[in-house]
Structures are given as structure tokens and as C-alpha cells.
């Protein structure tokens, strides 16, 4: 079997698990998480420097080989997302951006319309845009038109660890959208990441479920393996599920009559 390559934004990766840097009780565990998961793409956020207290720099813990994927968390409108994206690029860590536009603080669901607007602007400026959206066919199509590099639909609301509640919609996106589909948000267990990959998702992004595990390093390893297993199951084409045998031929019997 030839090597299975995950290609996005013109770059090639062997791992299909994207990880994050949020919610760790101690950032110093991040290098070991990157190693045990095999992940090659990692998200960060952009925030005001806290002038009062001295906090560690998360960048000190991100291995150099990782592709950095800054997000626009905190943005409530397309304009704010664009502003954050430009600032992130000025950090000199590449032109990848995960667009996240959320103005609903109760459910933290992404605003597809504003996200598509921001995607269009940033794609024209040469960004590799990965928008985080609801699992919605129309939004996904507008993102394709807007020049996104991938579509990142949610499995269930952010941080809920509830698995693939959007299963049927994800299936439609996987089928209809030609861009890579990266299931983001809501994946709480390796079995759920595995299922998404079995269904044909191109990759999964997992942050909370790893960061908040009692042993993040071991959980990262489990996710890395689950994503790989699901991918291999998808590529190998699962065998048929057999229903009970049909004795007679009620629908096609007429073909052998007369």
C-alpha cells in the first residue's frame, strides 16, 4: 500500500490528527503530547499580553517541526476575525489561520455567515484558511467558493465532549464537499475520532479531550492510534453487512415468470 498522505494548503502530512494547546493544566506537557499523538499541526490563540503578571510563553513548548495553526477565537464578526488573522500572520509563523467567529456565548456555536465573509477576504490575501463551522451543506459550499483550504465542521458543540451528534450532516459534507473535511469540536473519545475517520473525514482536531484527560500524554497516543485506525478502515473498504437471507423474490420474481 502506498503511503497515505494528508495534503492541505500545499503541504503534506502523515498524521491526520490536529491538536490544540488550550486547557492544559501545565503547558510543559505539550511536547510529549505532540510526540505521543504523532500530530503535526497544532492550534494556538492570540491574546493581549498580560502586563501585570509574568506567564510562560506557550511557544516555548511547541516543537519546531509542528505546523502552527493560529485561530481567531475571540472574534465576534468577520472584521474582527480578519484583524486577528492579520496580526497572527505578523507573528511570522506562516499564513495558516483557523477562522472561528462566535458571538453566542451560551452555546458557542460558530456564525457561518460571518465566517464565510472572513474566509473570502483572507483567502484573497493568500492565507491558508481553515474555517470552523456548523455541519451545514450550504455554509460548506459557500466556503468552497470563498477559497477555503478545508472545512472544519463541528461534531457537537465546542468543549462538550459529546461525540458526533452531527453524524448525518457530516456524512453529507464528506460526500459533497471536495475540500478536506476536518471534524473539529465535540470529539470526546478516541472511538468517536475513529468513527469520523471511518466515515471518510480527512482529519480530526482534538484539544479538550486530550488536554483534560488525567494522563494527556497517554490520551494523545490513543487519539493518534484511533485516527489512524479509522483512516485505515476507511481506505480498506469495510465488508458488507449481511441482512437475513431473502427466501423468495417478491420484487423481481416477475422476471422469471412466463
Amino acid at each position, binding site marked *: 500500500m502506498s503511503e497515505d498522505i494528508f495534503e492541505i494548503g500545499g503541504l503534506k502530512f502523515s498524521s491526520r490528527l490536529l491538536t490544540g494547546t488550550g486547557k492544559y493544566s501545565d503547558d510543559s506537557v505539550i511536547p510529549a503530547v505532540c510526540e505521543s499523538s504523532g500530530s503535526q499541526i497544532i492550534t494556538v490563540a492570540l491574546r493581549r499580553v498580560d502586563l501585570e503578571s509574568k506567564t510562560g510563553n506557550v511557544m516555548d513548548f511547541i516543537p519546531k517541526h509542528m505546523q502552527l495553526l493560529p485561530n481567531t477565537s475571540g472574534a465576534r464578526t468577520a472584521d474582527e476575525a480578519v484583524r486577528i488573522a492579520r496580526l497572527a500572520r505578523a507573528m511570522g509563523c506562516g499564513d495558516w489561520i483557523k477562522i472561528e467567529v462566535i458571538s453566542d456565548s451560551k452555546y458557542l456555536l460558530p456564525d457561518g455567515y460571518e465566517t464565510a465573509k472572513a474566509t473570502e477576504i483572507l483567502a484573497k490575501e493568500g492565507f491558508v484558511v481553515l474555517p470552523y463551522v456548523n455541519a451545514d451543506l450550504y455554509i460548506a*459550499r459557500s466556503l468552497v467558493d470563498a477559497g477555503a483550504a478545508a472545512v472544519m465542521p463541528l461534531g457537537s458543540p465546542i468543549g462538550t465532549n459529546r461525540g458526533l451528534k452531527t453524524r448525518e450532516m457530516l*456524512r453529507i459534507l464528506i*460526500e*459533497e464537499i471536495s475540500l478536506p473535511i476536518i471534524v473539529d469540536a465535540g470529539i470526546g473519545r478516541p472511538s468517536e475520532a475513529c468513527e469520523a475517520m471511518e466515515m471518510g473525514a480527512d482529519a480530526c482536531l482534538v484539544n479538550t479531550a486530550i488536554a483534560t484527560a488525567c494522563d494527556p500524554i497517554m490520551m494523545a497516543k490513543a487519539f493518534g492510534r484511533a485516527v489512524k485506525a479509522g483512516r485505515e478502515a476507511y481506505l480498506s*473498504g*469495510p*465488508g*458488507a*453487512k*449481511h*441482512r437475513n437471507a*431473502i427466501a423468495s*423474490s*417478491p*420484487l*423481481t420474481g*416477475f*422476471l422469471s415468470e412466463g
Partner: protein
Amino acid sequence: MSFYPISDEYSKLPLLEKFESVTEADVHRAISATTASPEDFLAMLSPAAIPFLEEMAQKASQLTLQNFGKTIQLFTPLYLSNYCTNRCIYCGFNTTNDIPRTQLEPSQLEEEAQAIASTGLKHLLILTGDARKKASPQYLESCMEVLSKYFPSVSIEIYAMDENEYASLVKSGVDGMTMFQETYNEELYPTLHPAGPKKDFRYRLDAPERSCKAGMRVVNIGALLGLDNWRKDALLTGIHASYLQKKYPDVDVAVSLPRMRSHAGTFKPASIVSDQDMVQNMLALRIYLPRVGITVSTRESPDFRENILPLGVTKMSAGVSTEVGGHSQKGEKVGQFDISDERSVEEMRAALIKHGYQPVFKDWEPIGNNEVNK
């Protein structure tokens, strides 16, 4: 982008060998897939799938019920004109066939339209030969002025046109377009269509897509099964329909399954398409494209048309005459092809109800044309 590069790619594949090499396991996998891939479609069209037709029928039947319910949309063709400049060697309207040529005048059309409307049908398919000078786009638009009074939905099955011509017809009230590629075999195509505008394979191949772009609501494609190996043409028809569905999600894509019948001429089909082949084609298509419309004409016999009701068909013609003016005058004219189900609309309606199906005379009517019927 066009469908041509895709069909060209398929034409370079050893398709007959691929059909022969399908295994039983491939067929099982195809039938049980949540969504069937083009490879699954190929497997279901292969000879290896024949022992599993009942299994395919169960799935196809369930998918049809899920997506369309127990309904069959009825329509009838109206032949406006049989002038033709093509020499399609299998067609009764072939320009070299010595048959009386006529074209309905708008006054005759009124009579014909009234005769059809009195049966209750609201979906009409108008047809002409390929004679752009005679049955011109302007002629068709003037026909629409008459027909719009009687039919909320009119489809065309005429020569291939440019996108702007389709757009003008949409404006005049046409909402559907039917075009058969006849065969997707580009090498065989010129022998079957040796002269006339239809000789241009690619212009015809891209015509359904041009009509999608022009705003047609329903686009119905098909291959005339039997011209080439039916499995190859059935495969390409499904791939073509899938291409259109994906690219034009606002268009209702449908596929017709016509097979060769006799006509005024001496052409003998390359392959005989049996009832079993027809059923296999329909089942594979339904499983591959659960939402696609499937049209079966009166080329098929009453028995066959009733037997396939649960298997995937969604549209049927009824009360058909393939002669120009055949709905209002009964004469000894020559039709485009012979029909096999000669039942009236009323008889067809009763037959459908007997089988537990609702005959649908009017599926929709566009609103907002700012026109008032007086």
C-alpha cells in the same frame, strides 16, 4: 469545466473487462454501502450482480419509498414537428426516411393542447426533430404562448442549443429539458449519427449542463440502451447524472431508461436489452443516486411498467402518441418509434391506483411570473 474530460477518462478504461472482473464480494459491498461510489455502481451493473437482483430490489425499493413515496408523476409527449436534418440510423425521423413531414401551426397546437389538457395532465414534454430553421427557437417561443395557458410545466426534447437560447426558453415558460446522449461511446457515435448538427458529440454532451446553467428546473438525460453495450452506457449515464447533481444542486436531475425498439428503418440494435437488464440498470441507478428521478416511457409494455413500480421509477408517460398532431387527430401517420403501452391517461391512472400508487398530474407550478390567466 465540462463532463467531457470525465467521460473521456472513462472511455479510455477497459470497461468491459472491469465489468467481468467484479466479484460477489464487490457486489455485496456495493449494496450495503451507506452511499454508493462510482465503483459500487459499476459493480451493481456487472454480470456478477445478476444473482443479487432481489437484494438490490429490496434496497432500491426502500430508497425510492423514502425519497419519493408511493407516487408516479405522469406526463405526455407532444410532437410539434418531425422535420429533421439528422441521419440517425436508428430513428424514424431520419431525414432520408420517406415519411410525410409536418409541423403544427399555433392554431392546430391549440387543438392538440386542449385534447391533452382534457385528460387532466399538467406536465407536458414537447418534441421536435433537429431542424433549427423550421422549428426555430422563435417558433418554440410562440408555441409556449399557447401551451402556457394549459400546462404549468413544459419540458423540451429538441435539438441541442446554446445557453442563451435555453435561457430564453426558460423565460418563455419552459422549465424542463430532456436530452439523450444516445451513446457515450465517442467512437461509435459518428457511425450512428453520420450527418446533421447532431453529429457534434461534445456539443450534445454538454447541452444538459448548458441548460442547468440557463436555469432549467428539471434536466433529464439518458442513453438509448442497445446502441452500444448497455452496461457501458448505463454506467456513463449514471456518472453524468451524478456530475450534474453535484455541480447544480438546485436542478432536479432525472434519467430516462429507453431501450431500442423498432421504427421506420432497418437498424438492428447492437445488443438486446432484456427485461432483466432493464431492471438491473434501474436498481443500480436508484442505489447509486437515491434522489435521481427515473423516467420510463410507453416503449415498455403495460405489464413491465406495472411490475417495476416499486423498483425506482418516478415518472411515466401516459396517453402517448409519437406522431405530430397525434393527440387530436387519429390518422395513419408515422411516429418516431412504436409504443407498447397504448393505454389512455385514465386507464394509466386507474392502474397506478390499483397498485397503491398515487398518480401525480401536477407536481409544481412556478409562481411569480406576474402573469394573470384570463
